[in-house]
């Protein structure tokens, strides 16, 4: 008989857990929070649970919202008070940045086309299961595209190509780029395709655009990304699918009846998409916890970084710095114009949470991890001549970029460490040339581990083939407007946010060069150098 695991929040049959291997991981795969699993052997109970749980998508965020509610109740006025240290740090950073000189040379090279970011927008990033819950992925993508059209005043037939990145695909709209483009009213003569590369999917969309323009295939491309975690495809079990497909082919009533008769209750249990690495069967949070431990990152360091992220995001939001956010009238709901996951809290609050993945001694918690998010982004990328010809004032040059990949087990989230020195070398820059750093914050522990890896001579020599360390980015230039931990992380959409934020920060802070770096599932990573467009 199949064994089932039932938690207070979620239930899945044993075979689903098999994907995790013989481990004792008992965190909920969706909310990634802790849950106590107990064994039951009566499938009927499961179906009740499934009925109640699975098809109510709110579930996906119960754990996190519970956590938030706690904070909101206990700590209503904590936002700015509790973390004044971090705030003052960031304020001095901004002041410093403003007085920096702009005497550096440009990265423009003869014979290489200058490619520019004209505009970048995104829908507000919302906790999944909240206001966007009833939408579909292409709805969000369409909203971002319409926002881009609105902001740029771009004629609907003036782009040559549209590329979108996404991770968990809605089967009905597997080429979500095309569906969203059509719905947004773009000319049906504009081809569109969808790319996927885990958390750097929209980076891939943007660099594909850069490639098309550099190759002379296109002059203007819209690149973006979308992720919708409020609804994910949950499949029938393999056995059930096989039976159903055979039913289609069955010719006689007898054949059909015997196929129907072969269905067992256990076949009805659904198959959920896993937030686990396919090659290693390890969930990302678990790997992040191990990574943090490998670099000796303490729980306090992680919690402090998470608080910093939320605090800075809150300040940026309040100061109106997040200009890339567009308002979105959700059908049947209110207008959404703000990210809703930003919740600065106290270290004490953070300290109360139990580890979510490695128990009982782990350090990664629901609060120092990025949460499941719905959101979409879009960017208009053009050759400089084309942009100028169309009368645009570009925001930034998109310069060198690299993709890297490494061991998906022990170095799953070290993409930034590998990508940063590589892209700097390509661009002929050093760490100190960079004025603005925007790294993707998958987990606070992952960011801190990357910082330590970049700052380690041993790591530099052993794994990066260097004589010495790369050096960690200075915190006063790093993710000053919050990051994925606080703003949210719709897997496929984050890359565009990072690039647009760098462009906006360069404008605001007066810097010359910015660096984007991100890690992604599969042990991959990306880094890109962005140069301010002369103002």
């Amino acid at each position, binding site marked *: 008989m199949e064994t089932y695991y039932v938690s207070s929040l979620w239930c899945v049959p044993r075979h689903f857990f098999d994907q995790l291997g*013989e481990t*004792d991981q008992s965190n909920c795969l969706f909310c990634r929070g802790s849950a106590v699993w107990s064994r039951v052997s009566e499938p009927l109970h499961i179906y009740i649970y499934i009925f109640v749980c699975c098809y109510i998508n709110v579930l996906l965020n119960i754990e996190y919202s519970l956590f938030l509610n706690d904070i909101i109740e206990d700590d209503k006025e904590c936002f700015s008070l509790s973390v004044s240290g971090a705030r003052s740090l960031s304020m001095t950073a901004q002041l410093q940045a403003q007085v920096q000189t702009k005497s550096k040379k440009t990265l423009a090279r003869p014979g290489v086309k200058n490619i520019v970011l004209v505009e970048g927008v995104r829908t507000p990033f919302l906790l999944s299961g909240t206001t966007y819950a009833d939408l579909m992925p292409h709805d969000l993508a369409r909203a971002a595209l319409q926002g881009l059209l609105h902001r740029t005043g771009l004629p609907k037939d003036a782009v040559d190509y549209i590329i979108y990145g996404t991770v968990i695909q809605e089967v009905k709209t597997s080429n979500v780029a095309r569906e969203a483009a059509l719905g947004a009213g773009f000319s049906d003569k504009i081809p569109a395709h969808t790319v996927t590369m885990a958390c750097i999917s929209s980076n891939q969309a943007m660099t594909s655009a850069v490639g098309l323009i550099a190759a002379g295939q296109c002059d203007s491309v819209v690149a973006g990304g979308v992720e919708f975690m409020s609804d994910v495809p949950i499949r029938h079990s393999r056995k059930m699918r096989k039976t159903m497909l055979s039913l289609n082919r069955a010719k006689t009533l007898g054949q059909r009846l015997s196929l129907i008769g072969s269905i067992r209750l256990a076949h009805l249990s659904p198959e959920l998409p896993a937030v686990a690495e396919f090659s*290693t*069967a390890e969930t990302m949070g678990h790997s992040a916890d191990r990574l943090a431990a*490998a*670099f000796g990152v303490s729980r306090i360091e992680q919690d402090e970084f998470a608080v910093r992220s939320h605090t800075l995001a809150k300040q940026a939001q309040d100061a109106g710095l997040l200009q890339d956010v567009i308002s979105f009238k959700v059908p049947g709901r209110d207008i959404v114009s703000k990210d809703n996951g930003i919740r600065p809290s106290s270290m004490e609050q953070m300290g109360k949470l139990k580890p979510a993945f490695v128990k009982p001694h782990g350090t990664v918690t629901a609060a120092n991890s990025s949460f499941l998010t719905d959101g979409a982004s879009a960017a208009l990328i053009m050759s400089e001549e084309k942009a100028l010809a169309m009368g645009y004032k570009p925001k930034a040059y998109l310069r060198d970029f690299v993709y890297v990949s490494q061991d998906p087990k022990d*170095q799953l989230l070290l993409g930034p460490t590998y990508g940063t020195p590589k892209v700097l070398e390509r661009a002929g820059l050093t760490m100190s040339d960079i004025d603005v750093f925007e790294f993707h914050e998958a987990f606070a522990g992952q960011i801190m581990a990357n910082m330590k890896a970049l700052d380690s001579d*041993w790591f530099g020599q052993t794994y990066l083939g260097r004589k010495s360390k790369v050096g960690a980015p200075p915190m006063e230039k790093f993710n000053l407007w919050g990051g994925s931990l606080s703003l949210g992380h719709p897997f496929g959409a984050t890359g565009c946010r990072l690039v647009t934020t760098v462009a906006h920060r360069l404008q605001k802070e007066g810097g010359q060069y910015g660096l984007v770096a991100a890690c992604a599932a599969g042990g991959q990573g990306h880094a890109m150098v962005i140069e301010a467009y002369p103002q």
Partner: protein
Amino acid sequence: MLARTHVSYELKDDVAVIRLNDPTAKVNTLTWQLQSELMAVMEEIWANGAVKGAVLISSKPGNFLAGADIKIIQSANSSEEATGFSRQVQKQLEKFEKSPIPIVAAIHGLCLGGGLELAIACQYRIATKSKNTFLGTPEVKLGLLPGLGGTQRLPKLVGLPEALDMMLTGRNISADRAKKMGLVHQLVDPLGPGTKPAEERTIEYLEEVAVGVAKGIANKQVPLTKEKSLMQKLQDTVMGLGQVRKMIYKTASEKVQKQTKGLYPAPVKIIESVKTGLEHGTKAGYLAESENFGKLTVTSEANALIGLYHGQVTCKKNHFGTPEKDVKRLAILGAGLMGAGIAQVSVHKGLTAILKDTTEESISRGHEQVYKSLNTKVKKRALTSFERDVTMSNLSVQLDYSGFQSADIVIEAVSEDINIKHKVLKEVEAIISPHCIFASNTSTLPIKDIAAASKHPEKVIGMHYFSPVDKMPLLEIITTDETSKDTLASAVSVGLKQGKVIIVVRDSPGFYANRCIFQTMAEAIILLQEGAGPKKLDSLMTSFGYPIGPVSLSDEVGLDIAAHVAENLTKAFGVEGGHSAHTILSDLSERGFKGRKSGKGIYLYEDGTKDRSVNPEAEEILKKYKVAAPPAVSSDSDRQYRVVSRFVNEAVLCLQEGILRNPVEGDIGAVFGCGFPPFHGGPFRFVDSMGAERLVSIMRRFEDVYGNRFTPCQLLLDHAQDPSKKFH
């Protein structure tokens, strides 16, 4: 006070971290030195009121404590001395158990035997989930029992059935399994590299976690006992019933009896010690354990098994130096059972292999064999599907010689026909690079005959694998006079990479293993002619200690192959009885009775039935060759010794002729390749413990009836004349 070299400790806040590190060895073992230093350290810690907890950890990567020092056991002159050792450590471990401060054992790597017994005397155990972390009580494999409190503490910790299973099989238990059994309390994931190497950081992390737990236990934040689930409570209640326990002892004893035929004393003593402890109290239990331990240490079985253990360690080393070029790429000719088996053990250990055959059907079958073996591991969760795929990507099955130019070694497993061997050798030599070795997996053809067709005879060597390759640990490597030293070193390094136990022998028909087996087979056939009956004969030999009887073995190997071997060896040696063996075996196989593979051999093989019956048609054929059994040498025991003495004599002859390099390899080859009873330790140790003189006198008696096939060889006679001469 002498400086401590094996055990050190430092205080981390109020927790003492005790580090085990034997500077004289690669692995930590429980030596006198380590033990006394550990006790001295503990006394110091216990005397220090400021210390609230302790962590016991090894500084060695890959092992916590791999067991008691075998030297202590071997150097014990009497059972009393060994009992004394056991008593002493038992008392020390009792102090651990009753420690006023919690002691946390932090385990990374091997924690076996005495190491496990030390760990389970501690209050709390944390283990890393590393693939190299194993816990277990392998004493039974050495003919001993866990004599340092293991038979008493384990049943209380993991329950009677699990404890018996652990101690009677000696199996290694992975960290995950140990957690489920309740053998360890908590698991720690192995880490990747950080700002220092992975292994180093993992041990550090384990220590950090363990220190945290020790503090937690001292502050009463971490409970020592987990709340038991309903199932466990129920199980405990059931185990509380004397009747139930009685049944378990009975079942375990019966199983042991059935498997060991009463030839191995250790399992019986283990059950006895456990039983005494549970039924008559701990004190009596510890006493029984140490006494039984003492008794077992002086048995010939323990001596033989420990000898085998040492032999195996020796045969897992390359004694021929490092090969000039590291061998990474294999090419295997022939995708049959053997070829595919060789491919399987190769890719599984990270080598790349080309598997070539002449028909699509055979390479497809070969591919399936390798895939299936890996997929079984996936089903058992020993491997992830992803690891399986990556492993399979190292295998290429093909019909042509492409890629052979970059191979480092070619192993042929084609049909046993010298002409075919010559043909493929010539074909291969036209393609391969100059450094590439040509190895033949022939079972009987002399390597020098194969090498005769080679342009580079120094690169030709024999690598005789045993079927099924993934199960049989032995690899017999055969050198000719022309084989170069580097060729030998490379072949050995390949075998070691494949995880094999290796013996190196000189070229001769049948080499070592098959030459000896053939003597057994030939005698078995004669016994069948004399009307011994296949079943009776098999049971005679298994009760002597062979894992499989000679008749079943021939069926497993295939009667056609056995006939082929018989033909070759009879030609080469003119072995008496060989002709009839060859005639009868070919007669059987020509009728289609080829053994298990054809469903019919001397036995009938039907799916679903375990109890197989004798093939009546084969019996008919045997009747044709019937001869009368001379009553003087046909008692059960004589029949056993007729088979065994021919085997042993042939083995000694191989040493005498210089086929074998030493008795150690002879013993290892006989036990791991021919199924010689392990508790005898191999033919040479058998002669040592039985006395050459006695064996010779038995053989003389047979010689009187049968003539020179029972004439003892000169070396055996030498040993018989001078009892001080020993092989070991």
